[in-house]
């Protein structure tokens, strides 16, 4: 069993920050939009540190109780951005790397600690920066390497939440920790195909272990499968007789079609950004299952001809 149900875990507050590119997309009420990618820092790495500190400062300023832990991560090597940004706060810290699944990973750990009464209030943080990801995983930023239609663009943004045992309008009801799935894909431009089997695997596991039906949820929100990955995901669910009543892929809808950004958005910030600034603002769905997928891509090992492993963690939310 790697699925858990929670009775006393709530999402108390959240704060979102993005760049202008995301604001021009489909996101509705972003808390703060950066002027440019530098955010008044000297380098993009330092800019991402500032982005994280900005959202943490903002969320702490409107929460007057003690924070027990900070849990979170980002895409950079050694999750350096998160470690540096959190060093500003005298709060115990757990750093995570789950690529684009980091948000759900942090929620599950926080929810487990709170439901076992090991903590009362936990702050989660996750971020991604398009140009840091480009520099680290792909080509130099100014190279402007052409991308095929199946590729996704890393979203720029930072999201912080407070997970608490105090009731709020957003309840964390359950979580499933996924396992690593590797179907032998080596195409670094096709992350949707890398992650789709992990999403399907975790969804099936979540439903069987918690004895739930897919119709118990109003919405299945996947992280960043993109247009290509979403189609494969649905195809993979067919043998299990699972038909998705309502499925939205955060990566697919973050940007507008006319922005012409290939297969959509990716990055750890993608799913929380779409969830908090679009899905929840629309107030259309009550029971939401978040499937955050992460491609655990390492350029060195891909160059050594190894395939890309993927993971997906599930968290269900209920709007009260």
């Amino acid at each position, binding site marked *: 069993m790697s699925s858990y149900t929670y009775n006393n875990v709530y999402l108390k507050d959240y704060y979102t920050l993005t760049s202008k590119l995301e604001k021009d997309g489909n996101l509705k009420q972003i808390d703060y939009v950066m002027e440019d990618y530098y955010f008044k820092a*000297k*380098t993009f790495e330092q800019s991402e540190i500032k982005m994280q500190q900005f959202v943490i400062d903002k969320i702490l300023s409107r929460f007057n109780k003690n924070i027990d832990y900070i849990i979170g991560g980002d895409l950079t090597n050694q999750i350096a951005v998160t470690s540096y940004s959190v060093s500003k706060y005298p709060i115990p810290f757990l750093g995570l790397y789950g690529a684009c699944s980091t948000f759900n990973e942090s929620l599950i750990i926080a929810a487990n600690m709170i439901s076992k009464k090991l903590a009362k209030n936990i702050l989660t943080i996750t971020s991604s920066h398009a140009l840091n990801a480009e*520099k680290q995983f792909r*080509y*130099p*930023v*100014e*190279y*402007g*390497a*052409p*991308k*095929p*239609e*199946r590729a996704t663009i890393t979203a720029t943004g930072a999201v912080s939440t407070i997970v608490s045992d105090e009731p709020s309008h957003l309840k964390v009801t359950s979580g499933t920790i996924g396992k690593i799935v590797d*179907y*032998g*894909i080596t195409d670094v431009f*096709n992350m949707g*195909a890398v992650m789709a*089997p992990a999403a399907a695997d975790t969804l099936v596991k979540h439903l069987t272990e918690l004895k739930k039906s897919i119709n118990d949820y109003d919405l299945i929100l996947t992280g960043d499968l993109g247009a*290509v990955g979403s*189609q*494969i995901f649905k*195809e*993979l669910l067919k043998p299990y007789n699972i038909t998705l009543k309502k499925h939205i892929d955060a990566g697919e809808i973050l940007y507008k079609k006319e922005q012409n950004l290939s297969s959509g958005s990716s990055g750890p910030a993608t799913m929380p950004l779409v969830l908090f600034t679009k899905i929840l603002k629309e107030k259309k769905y009550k029971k939401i299952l978040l499937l955050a997928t992460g491609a655990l891509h390492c350029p060195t090992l891909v160059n050594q001809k190894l395939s890309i492993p993927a993971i997906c963690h599930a968290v269900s939310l209920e709007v009260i």
Partner: protein
Amino acid sequence: MKKEEYKKLVKKYTPKDNKFENALIAFVSGGVVGILGVFIYQILTMFEIGEKTSTIWTVIILVLIASFLTSMCIFDKWVTKFRCGLIVPITGFAHSVTSSAMDYKQDGLITGLGANIFKLAGSVIIYGVISAYVLTLLAVIFHV
């Protein structure tokens, strides 16, 4: 599902690149760079500096133009649009060196810029030198 089966499924849903369109764009945009090169060369020959020197100066001027446009954050947008038409000529080589330098200039002159400036161009240089060496060797052996 087996890995082989999955690869077939992925192939089914992955949009195919329009190779003909890409090749056409590269042909036209690369051609424009070529015309620009000839244009510069023709102007240089007016100064009567000799064919060889004119060629060298043409290359230098193209490299300079590309590097300048890269540093002004213009060339990357063109590369995204015109692809190999700009990457394959000498302009692409200059662009790859300048963009790497810009990426790493904040990481220190030795550990950052110096160590990474040929990140992309390094392969071009090393295999360019090796193939030049092999071809020259063949030319010497067969007295071409």
